[in-house]
């Protein structure tokens, strides 16, 4: 019993569609060249030396005490941040889904959390941490009169990363908790369990895989994070910063490559566990939809302490964000707290602010539509079509999610500075705006693809089949049916890609040439120099740009997104 005939017929039908074949070939080429190849070249770099293939480079870097320290530093931070973020995320999600919130104010605070992870550029929280709690911090020096508080180091990174990443956990946990059928818990209550007992024996076991999932996602984010450790790490180096210094400071390309391989190995391992074990498990236990509305907890002994706890945490986060624009308006940081606009003026007069914003803006603007379209095409192919290379396309575009920016940056340096495989082919790309755009695309592709895939999975397969059946070819089906149906996802993918690109730093900082001034790189530079006023001014304007982009997207979706009209039924 062999499936030869259907296989050959399917192949014939497949090749009868030249547009799709071309698309797939181009996609595979793109993914191979810009994701797989740079990573492969890192492996080559770190294993192949003049003496042949071996572990000599790894032996060399393992002898460096600062590298060994960086590994343990990174893991320590990642572990703590993962746990803290998952728990705080759970707390907020639980309060939102289970507890009756009395005030408008609290509901407003929760809405802010949706936006934070989207609009916030990296290292904004690091800046405000230094402004508030540093040696000359408003709170430490002027309220508490502590003159030697050291925010730099382990605790600085851990706190800042937790505050940066917990909203993601909050959103993951919220989704899970909403899917728990309330009657499960009611049944347990009915059989005589206390609320605490219900939480421990019903709710928690149900969401445990999800909690583990949230932990790992944050863990990966934390160890891949470059910007925060760079600014607030001080002498406490993590893997990402060590790799950066190894290549920019010590010009040790092989060493940096090997370190990047180590970092990639760790994130990949975590990613595989997360993706193929926990993710499947966390949704498998909660596949059912809640049958009814949940009775919210009104018991004051529960609501009051939880509300207070959440409010304090939330206010703290909001305060951290608010103090960035203020940081940009104080005359002399630490001495003179009169308000001034001189930093904002200097951004544009002295520090080529216009060029920085223009370069960042234009490059991101080029990258985002390409990213959005590409991710929708990938999602369409993955969800709706059957062909041989599908697994490859899906795996590689998801793989990009596990690649830390620093690793990708090193890969691009090694892979393209002398052309592909050092042959000079595509060497012209290196140092141009095009390679920055490509990095932007690769960095945002996984998020876009993921949202596209989940949007497409909700669309009945037969809708596209019907169009196909009426005589449309693949391109027509995609343009007239698929894309309009996932318009919302496409639009939000567009904006997410834009925001991610304009706030990107880790890979970019390694690849940018003096020809281009990018905002994030500027912020990083000024923050390192201690010019916090200028850094905050840049950051404030950046937040305004990203926030407006998100607002604009919501408006566009509200008025032009047709999806809501037909998704309700």
């Amino acid at each position: 019993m062999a499936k030869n005939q259907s296989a050959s017929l399917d192949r014939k039908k497949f090749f009868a569609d030249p547009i799709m074949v071309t698309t797939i070939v181009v996609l595979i080429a793109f993914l191979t060249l810009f994701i797989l190849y740079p990573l492969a070249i890192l492996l080559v770099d770190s294993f192949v030396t003049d003496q042949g293939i071996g572990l000599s480079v790894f032996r060399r870097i393992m002898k460096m005490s600062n590298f060994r320290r960086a590994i343990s530093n990174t893991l320590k931070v990642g572990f703590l941040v993962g746990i803290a973020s998952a728990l705080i995320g759970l707390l907020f999600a639980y309060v939102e889904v289970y507890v009756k919130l009395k005030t408008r104010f609290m509901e407003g605070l929760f809405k802010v959390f949706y936006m934070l992870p989207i609009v916030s550029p990296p290292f904004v929280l690091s800046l405000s941490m230094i402004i508030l709690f540093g040696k000359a911090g408003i709170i430490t020096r002027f309220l508490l009169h502590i003159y030697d508080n050291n925010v730099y180091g382990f605790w600085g990174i851990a706190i800042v990363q937790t505050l940066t990443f917990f909203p993601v956990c909050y959103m993951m946990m919220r989704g899970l908790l909403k899917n728990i059928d309330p009657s499960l818990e009611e049944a347990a209550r009915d059989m005589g369990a206390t609320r605490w007992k219900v939480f421990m024996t019903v709710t928690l076991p149900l969401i445990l895989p999800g909690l583990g999932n949230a932990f790992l996602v944050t863990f990966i984010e934390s160890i891949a994070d470059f910007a925060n450790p760079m600014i607030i790490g001080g002498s406490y180096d993590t893997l990402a910063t060590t790799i950066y210094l190894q290549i920019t400071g010590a010009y040790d390309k092989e060493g940096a490559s090997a370190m990047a391989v180590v970092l990639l190995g760790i994130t990949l391992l975590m990613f595989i566990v997360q993706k193929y074990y926990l993710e499947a498990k966390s949704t498998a236990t909660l596949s059912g939809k809640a049958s009814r509305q949940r009775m919210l907890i009104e018991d004051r002994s529960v609501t009051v302490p939880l509300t207070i706890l959440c409010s304090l945490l939330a206010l703290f986060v909001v305060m951290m964000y608010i103090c960035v624009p203020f940081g940009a308006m104080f005359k002399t940081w630490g001495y003179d707290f009169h308000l001034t606009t001189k930093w904002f003026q200097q951004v544009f007069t002295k520090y080529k602010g216009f060029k920085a914003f223009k370069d960042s803006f234009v490059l991101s603007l080029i990258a985002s539509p390409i990213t959005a379209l590409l991710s929708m095409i990938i999602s369409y192919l993955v969800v709706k079509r059957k062909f041989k290379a599908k697994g490859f396309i899906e795996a590689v575009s998801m793989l990009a999610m596990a690649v830390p920016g620093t690793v990708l940056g090193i890969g691009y340096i090694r892979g393209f500075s002398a052309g592909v495989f050092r042959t000079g082919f595509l060497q012209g790309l290196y140092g141009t705006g095009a390679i920055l755009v490509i990095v932007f695309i690769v960095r945002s592709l996984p998020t876009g693809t993921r949202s596209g895939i989940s949007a497409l999975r909700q669309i009945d397969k037969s809708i596209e089949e019907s169009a196909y059946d009426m005589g449309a070819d693949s391109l027509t089906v995609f343009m007239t049916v698929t894309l309009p149906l996932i318009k919302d996802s496409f639009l939000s993918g567009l904006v997410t890609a834009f925001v991610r690109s304009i706030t990107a730093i880790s890979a970019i900082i390694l690849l940018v040439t003096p020809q281009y001034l990018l905002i994030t790189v500027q912020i990083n530079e000024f923050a390192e120099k201690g010019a916090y006023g200028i850094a905050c001014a840049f950051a404030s304007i950046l937040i305004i740009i990203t926030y407006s982009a998100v607002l604009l997207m919501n408006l566009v979706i509200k008025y032009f997104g047709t999806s809501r009209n037909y998704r309700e039924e």
Partner: protein
Amino acid sequence: MAKEKKGVRLEHISKIYQDPKTKKNFYAVKDTSLDIEPGSFVTLLGPSGCGKTTTLRMIAGFESPDEGEIYLGGEPINALTPNKRDTAMVFQSYALLPHYNIFDNVAYGLKLRKMDKETIKTKVTNILKLVGLEGMEARMTNQLSGGQQQRVALARALVLEPGVLLFDEPLSNLDAKLRVSMRTEIRRIQQEAGITAVYVTHDQSEAMAISDKIIIMEKGIVAQMGSPQEIYYHPKSEFVADFIGEANFLKGPLKSKNGSDGVVDISGTKVDVKEISHFGIGDTCTLVLRPESAVLADAGQLPCRVILSCFMGSYQNYHVMVGDNLVKITDFNPKNKKIYDVGDKAYVKFDPANVHVL
């Protein structure tokens, strides 16, 4: 209305699937040959997993057969993609394009055929009139009831004047009453348009009401094909008899034979039967007795004991034991008849001509 009625021919078609758990290949459809006459209405009927939808999707081109060749109007179409085939399908979920209004949904295929605007408009208007949706052109699909959506799906397929119209359980999402009226409508429209139709369903009454010819499938194999009457009165197997309508099966050896008539021993009682010329003395015969072909009486062929008696309005529903066999009887119009109670002794009475022997 159709440009040209086309017949569909399947020659030794097989489709192999892989079981996702055991990784073993199995036949979803096995060595199936069909010849569907141009302009006829043919139904593929069977329980879920029998291969009927797979067969339909192979005709549409969504699946490729592993063995055999499919012909549409005499042309082999195995290698054609669905958009190049002269077929149009009505989907179970209707699959209307939710971002288009009714007009654009129906016009979608016509636009792809690059027709001019005027022609499209006339065609769409005519077809919407045919399905009873005139004046609804501007509505969005979610403003329609299930039955109306069904009509749009039908109109959208009909307007393309395809060589063959394919239906994939189109009525299964409608409520019972609507289902009955829609099936009559589909039959009427098919006759008016004079179009070849292949219809998939698991509902036997739907199949009977609508078809020229029914093809019953079981585990990927055609169990029987024929007109509704042939299949109902002369089922070739217990599976067919049981699937189409309800049936009681009474087994026993053939005791004597006289030409085409004979006598079968059922639980110790001699029963006269007809049309048994292909059996020999001593062979086991299976009597297929439809519940509506028998009544309970004080005298009849088979002595029995009543174990369930239930008033259903238009009929009295009995379950009785004949020896060890459970026999179901629906006695219609019970108003002025003797009603037997649970525990009563009675006889099952029927006309031997109404018994089919397997």
